[in-house]
């Protein structure tokens, strides 16, 4: 077999980063990213992109830490390079605050982020409703800039991009040798996976350039994330809710909760509402599957289900997905013995 033809379904952060990783890892292959939606219409474009990872109950902690560290290191290098602005990556410091002492005062990712420590009494005075806090410096990776940056890198290495809605992975069998499924919630249909469900998140993107720190309530429900050209205020976690239209009452609630943490936000203006559906799953699905239909075979690498930790984990899981693709490609290149003896 000469060139291995690889199709990646989905052009959110998973699809694009996996395609880039594959182009770096797998020799003699062609990569085509096929998606219905592209930036700025993907879920990755709504996410604030803060590198504060969630915990996946079904994934071993050491694996999560590895994925997070690989993502952090990858973005840290970009943040300190001349490409930071183009790639939409920046360093942000701030505080995660709790209304009651958390069971885990030091999370698994404490030594991956920079300068992690407990907040001092003086620092906590700013948040009279909260009794405990963590101060650290982490990264923010913004979809609307990062996705085009990934696309550019992909095209630079010869990758192709196609706009098309895929209803069934077998549609790709004719033209491709390996399919990488990064379709997020689309996997309910494309992979028949009922374990994946939306967790609706509504956010506000506002102008408040004087806010230089992130503030996150430990519950994860209220947060203020300053970015390059706006501040993301959030949020909600609505399980099983597929509604993509913003809700005005919810927006009022978000603004009110965030102003309680940071009163200067009363002066925020140019408020825009956004909704994203987190592709949630008890664990990330990162595995090979050989689809079979009669005599047809289609190797698939599944890479989806990151819930609220997509940006935070993307590069680590993309590297692993690329390794799985590489295994598939090697298997395709290895001649099958003709005799069964």
């Amino acid at each position: 077999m000469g060139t291995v033809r690889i199709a990646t379904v989905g052009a959110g952060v998973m699809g694009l980063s996996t395609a880039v990783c594959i182009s770096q890892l797998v020799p003699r292959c062609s990569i085509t990213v096929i998606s219905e939606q592209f930036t700025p219409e993907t879920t990755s474009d709504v996410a604030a992109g803060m590198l504060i990872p969630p915990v996946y109950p079904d994934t071993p902690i050491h694996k999560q830490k590895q994925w997070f560290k690989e993502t952090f290191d990858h973005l840290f290098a970009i943040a300190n390079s001349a490409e930071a602005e183009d790639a939409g990556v920046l360093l942000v410091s701030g505080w995660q605050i709790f209304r009651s002492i958390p069971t885990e005062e030091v999370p698994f990712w404490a030594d991956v982020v920079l300068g992690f420590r407990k907040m001092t009494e003086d620092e906590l005075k700013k948040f009279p409703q909260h009794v405990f806090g963590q101060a650290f410096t982490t990264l923010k990776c913004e979809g609307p800039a990062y996705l085009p940056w990934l696309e550019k890198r992909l095209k630079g290495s010869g990758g192709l991009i196609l706009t098309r809605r895929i209803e069934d992975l077998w549609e790709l069998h004719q033209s491709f040798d390996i399919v990488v499924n990064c379709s997020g919630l689309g996997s309910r249909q494309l992979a028949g996976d009922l374990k994946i469900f939306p967790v609706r998140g509504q956010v506000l993107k506002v102008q408040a350039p004087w806010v230089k720190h992130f503030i996150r309530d430990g519950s994860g429900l209220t947060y203020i994330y300053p970015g390059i050209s706006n501040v993301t205020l959030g949020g909600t976690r609505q399980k099983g809710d597929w509604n993509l239209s913003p809700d005005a009452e919810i927006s009022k609630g978000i603004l009110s909760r965030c102003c309680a943490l940071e009163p200067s936000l009363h002066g925020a203006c140019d408020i825009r509402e956004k909704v994203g559906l987190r592709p949630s799953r008890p664990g990330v699905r990162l595995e090979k599957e050989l689809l079979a239909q009669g005599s047809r075979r289609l190797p698939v690498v599944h890479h989806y289900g990151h819930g609220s930790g997509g940006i935070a984990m993307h590069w680590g899981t993309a590297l692993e997905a690329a390794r799985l693709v590489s295994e598939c490609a090697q298997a395709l290149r290895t001649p099958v013995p003709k005799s069964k003896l």
Partner: protein
Amino acid sequence: MRVVVIGAGVIGLSTALCIHERYHSVLQSLDVKVYAERFTPLTNTDVAAGLWQPYLSKPSNPQEARWNQQTFNYLLSHIGSPNAADMGLAPVSGYNLFREAVPDPYWKDVVLGFRKLTPRELDMFPDYSYGWFNTSLILEGRKYLQWLTERLTERGVKFLLRKVESFEEVARGDADVIINCTGVWAGALQPDPLLQPGRGQIIKVDAPWMKHFIITHDPERGIYKSPYIIPGIQAVTLGGIFQLGNWSETNNIQDHNTIWEGCCRLEPTLKDAKIVSECTGFRPVRPQVRLEREQLHVGSSNTEVIHNYGHGGYGLTIHWGCALEVAKIFGKILEERNLLRMPTSHL
């Protein structure tokens, strides 16, 4: 009681406000006017990046340390008010970088969360091997002066565009007490060999991804002569120029290059940042702040002058503590003249 404040930079306006706040209700009548040749945006305060940070070494006058701390605490008490951003005030965190280990600064417990930099943080700055991280405050000169002007105007304080040639001229016409906040130009009213301009030049750029201040230090070259990057509310200030005795008000191309190269080396992400403006200012450098009372004999009456100038590169950092001190001296003058309706013991 007629007070004339000469100077409309941060020192003049904050002192005027402090005095009016404290004495307006305890005096039969208090008339405060501000005379200045330059108002915002043409003052030196407007050029300052506005980061609260004193010099690293202990001041020769220990009161200055106390005034710095009072200013920080005063500003911090406004954080949490919805108007903080209108004042030009916001918390900001960042890095102080050194080429070798140095002792902690005397103000380490004034700022928030002071700590040493970790090795991974230092990896971001290959030219430096030691440093601090802390949370401090930005008080943007221009915004703050606008805010002070609004507060003073609400209180009926008048502003006059006027070049004052002498204290006597002001004493003769209008004032019982003169507050001298003329900054780097104080020498024109009364020679002061201890006062010198510390010329600074800064470049303001659009770099909204910069959320931290980065201040480098080179003990051999001296304060402010090493690159610094300080994000403001809208733009980011790049600097690193300090020239004692230089009165040139125009931007200098070599200084521009020094700043640009130094800051881009420190922070490569800046290389494509758009330049918004470039300006020059004069830090009113003095071995210590001149904050003291002086009596003028003009004709048959005594006019009090309270000097409040010479705040070097830490005017915004120290301004409120000095304003409080001037207010204290002013209170003493009122007591001496039996002008107070109520005792000042509560101050």
